[in-house]
């Protein structure tokens, strides 16, 4: 690929005229093709966070239990007993639109590597997915490919996929979101970092061979799609979960020795970003001899090797006296192992290939002079609070519609394609509790894991929506009895060069920050995906939150399935907030109004009360009240436990379908005690009904059999995707 390097080529690589000018100043000459490639990917939105960095810095990231916050491959928190949880969520949105199976599969592979790179064995995967209008054939094809891809990869590597969420909305027609989260466990004194050290130490490449796939993937992920999106298919990588499995085992085996000085996976921008970041963080130079890079294809140029995003590869700096120990482990696992360079004291990255110097760049300016933009922001105008809405449907018909609609129907069809029992530690499976509960092998301790965001709230009021996403993650963890510890955030937004979009981003961060602070729930890792728009149509702003909590005793976890003979108690205040509710959208056909406000003090008070009741063993089942409101929450509890319920008389559609925040439904044998303690704690609570039988008796006397409700709830996905009844 002999091409003249000039401003036109720089623009093709995604660099602006100003940015190219800065490259010329740093280099003091016209860069080579390889050098321009390196600058363009390192300065891409995806790798440099140039639009988002100023805002991300304002997020709360500290707590006594945080071991490593943002800036490493993943966040690390202390979970007790000398262990750390290592976790992060990352997007693979653009590739998943172009090639859904491989896009989603490699998204899972990439986030797994971010976690085991730090010395953690992955124990759980989750995914937060957003798709377009189900009426479109394309949406169906994307759902099918994404679900198969996530399953195909996760099932093969042997990490259980235990939770997640799915929304549908036409705003995602051209830009589905695939956010994958991995959680791993490590000895908290043995966390591996990426800062290179030790002049002369060998730089070692392990894993799969390098091919021509994924070249400039990071650049693709940093631009809007036009009509030609599908022509970008060659920039999507292809995953090999078998090799990933080998890589996990080999790396963890090597990490049990003292051979590794630093390690990083080759993710976006592959060899370029891993080598630049490792050397940059360590304040050293690095020299690579590309002739030693294991190659899958012949005749690859330096530019192609540096920009390839071939999957399942890692870069390590080893102690020279342990090099052969490491080689033996990788040979045992039949993986490529190659010394491709060494650390230098020059502070430069030097790339040699076939006896030529193909790149020679000073590392400090590459990092420090990376563009940073304070992009203009425009506030989203506040929406007026929704006025009264006439209920023409009635409670029963509305429940039947809501329980079967794409956003609320059962996700069984999805999770039945994911292996969620592997590992033998899954205490609460998908569909059993508000957060997945995964026990730590050989211990009583367990983690509670969830992903959450309500994009329609964020669109209507980004600040409230940002706070709500964090609060809902906290609430879902709390509803199992676990103590919420920290979050990872995956900020999916449209084109940041548009002030309205940047305003959404900034306001979401403000709302998230307030919630993180009020709930002692810091951000420890995250990822930003911008330019999620196609032909000018933006996605709903989607700050997806991945939450992690801990339970000292897995046996204390509660799910939301009802059993007979219990009383139902509602905790939290109900005003009947229908603005932006699913009832308003699905039943009244309107998407409007201000979203429900999030009272963070009440959130904290209510949640701490609920968790206390659960840990005291007084709660048999608990469910947070979220999408669809109170009646939907009770219906979900009834189906999960295959036990009916009779609700107290009274209340209108706003009461039963409003989406007021900070609420939980508890099932207990001791309603009087719960109500008395709630009152003493200043927490609103009221008796809601009782459990038993095979019917749901609604507050207006209407009844629905669980069999009918289940049929409605389970029908949509199997019928839509496979043309069969559930």
């Amino acid at each position, binding site marked *: 690929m002999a091409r003249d390097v000039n401003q036109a080529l720089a623009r093709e690589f995604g660099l602006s005229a100003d940015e190219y000018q800065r490259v010329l100043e740093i280099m003091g000459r016209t860069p080579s093709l390889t050098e321009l490639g390196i600058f363009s990917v390192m300065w891409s939105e995806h790798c440099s966070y140039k639009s988002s960095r100023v805002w991300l810095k304002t997020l709360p990231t500290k707590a006594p239990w945080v071991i490593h916050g943002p800036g490493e491959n993943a966040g690390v928190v202390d979970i007790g007993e000398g262990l750390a949880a290592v976790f992060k969520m990352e997007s693979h949105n653009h590739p998943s639109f172009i090639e859904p199976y491989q896009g989603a599969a490699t998204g899972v592979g990439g986030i797994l590597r971010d976690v085991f790179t730090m010395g953690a064995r992955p124990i759980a995967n989750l995914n937060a997915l957003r798709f377009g209008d189900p009426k479109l054939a394309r949406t169906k094809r994307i759902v099918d490919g994404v679900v198969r891809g996530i399953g195909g990869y996760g099932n*093969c590597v*042997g990490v259980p996929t235990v939770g997640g969420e799915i929304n549908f909305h036409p705003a995602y027609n051209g830009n589905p979101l695939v956010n994958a989260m991995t959680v791993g466990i490590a000895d908290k004194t043995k966390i591996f970092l990426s800062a290179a050290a030790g002049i002369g130490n060998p730089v070692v490449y392990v894993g799969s061979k390098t091919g021509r796939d994924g070249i400039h993937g990071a650049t693709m992920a940093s631009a809007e799609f036009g009509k030609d999106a599908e022509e970008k298919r060659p920039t999507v990588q292809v995953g090999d979960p078998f090799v990933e499995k080998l890589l996990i085992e080999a790396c963890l085996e090597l990490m049990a020795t003292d051979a590794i000085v630093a390690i990083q996976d080759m993710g976006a921008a592959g060899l370029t970003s891993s080598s630049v970041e490792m050397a940059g963080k360590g304040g050293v130079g690095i020299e690579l001899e590309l002739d030693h890079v294991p190659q899958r294809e012949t005749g690859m140029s330096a530019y192609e090797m540096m920009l390839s995003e071939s999957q399942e590869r890692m870069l390590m700096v080893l102690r020279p006296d342990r090099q052969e120990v490491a080689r033996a482990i990788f040979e045992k696992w*039949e993986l490529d192992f190659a010394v491709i360079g060494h650390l230098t004291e020059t502070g430069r990255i030097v790339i040699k290939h076939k006896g030529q110097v193909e790149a020679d760049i000073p590392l400090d300016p590459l990092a420090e002079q990376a563009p940073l933009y304070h992009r203009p922001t425009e506030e989203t105008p506040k929406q007026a609070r929704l006025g009264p809405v006439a209920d023409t449907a009635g409670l029963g018909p509305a429940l039947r519609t809501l329980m079967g609609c794409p956003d609320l129907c059962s996700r069984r069809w999805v999770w039945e394609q*994911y292996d969620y029992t592997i590992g033998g530690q899954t205490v609460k499976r998908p569909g059993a509790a508000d957060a997945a509960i995964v026990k730590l092998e050989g211990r009583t301790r367990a983690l509670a894991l969830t992903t959450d965001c309500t994009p329609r709230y964020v669109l209507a009021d980004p600040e409230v929506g940002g706070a709500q996403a964090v609060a809902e993650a906290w609430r879902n963890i709390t509803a199992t009895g676990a103590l919420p510890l920290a979050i990872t955030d995956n900020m999916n937004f449209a084109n940041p060069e548009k002030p309205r979009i940047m305003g959404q981003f900034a306001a979401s961060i403000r709302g998230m920050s307030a919630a993180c602070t009020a709930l002692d729930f810091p951000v420890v890792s995250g990822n930003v995906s911008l330019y999620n728009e196609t032909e000018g149509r933006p996605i709903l702003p989607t700050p997806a939150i991945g939450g992690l909590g801990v339970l000292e005793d*897995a046996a204390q976890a509660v799910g939301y399935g009802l059993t007979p003979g219990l009383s139902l108690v509602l905790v939290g205040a109900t005003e009947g907030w229908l603005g932006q509710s699913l009832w308003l959208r699905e039943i009244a056909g309107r998407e409007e109004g201000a979203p429900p406000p999030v009272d963070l003090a009440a959130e904290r008070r209510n949640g701490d009360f609920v968790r206390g009741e659960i840990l005291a063993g007084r709660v048999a089942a608990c469910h947070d009240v979220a999408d669809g409101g109170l009646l939907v929450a009770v219906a979900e509890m009834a189906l999960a436990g295959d036990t009916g319920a009779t609700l107290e008389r009274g209340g209108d559609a706003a009461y039963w379908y409003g989406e007021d925040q900070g609420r939980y439904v508890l099932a207990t044998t001791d309603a009087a005690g719960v109500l008395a303690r709630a009152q003493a704690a200043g927490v609103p609570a009221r008796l809601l009904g009782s459990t038993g039988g095979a019917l749901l008796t609604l507050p207006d006397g209407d009844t629905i059999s669980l069999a009918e409700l289940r049929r409605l709830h389970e029908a949509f996905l199997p019928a839509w995707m496979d043309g069969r009844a559930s």
Partner: protein
Amino acid sequence: MKAGIVVFPGINRERDMAIALERSAGHAPRMVWHRESDLSGLDLVVIPGGFSYGDYLRCGAMAAQSPIMGAIRAHAARGGHVLGVCNGFQILIEAGLLPGALLRNQGLRFLAMDCHLKVERADTDFTRHYQQGEVFRAPMAHGDGNYFAAPETLDRLEGEGRVIFRYATPTGEITPEANRNGSQRNIAGIASENLRVLGLMPHPEDLVDPLMGGEDGKPLFDSICAALAA
């Protein structure tokens, strides 16, 4: 009982299996790396679930050709006990230790769900702690578990009493609805002629602890541990 779990590079349920065996036997099994060739001293050889060599084409086909299979065949020929679960079942079939084939699931999707298994024979070393005709729950998680064999092979397996488990409803009826992967005659698990080599698709090893939802799978491990206790 001395049990060994064979670990091919892409096997991924070896720890689940080790936990289940240890729960019943009281001691940890030996992990046997696939390049080893000596299985002497083992009473039970287990091939657990996973994707032995990635298994992108025919599941278990590459593992069946690996050197350790010679040792496993010899162990079986000596009358030793072998248990293959999921990928392990696929490998035993590909290696010719059990008859038939495991095809893509009907519906062509990976299936991860609890199924119910009817115990067709409770007089084998693997099933004595179940009752004849008992139905128990087991998680399944596979893409290629659709058991297929020629009608005469199926007749012979049934005639010789070598069908050990069938997919059933919770009340024990053998119906198409209970047979999500589409297996011939609802077959979930079969044994060798001497009933000492057992292969099945579902994962009893993932249901041996009330905390994970039940102990339905535990009698299988209790059975084999009791049979081989010495």
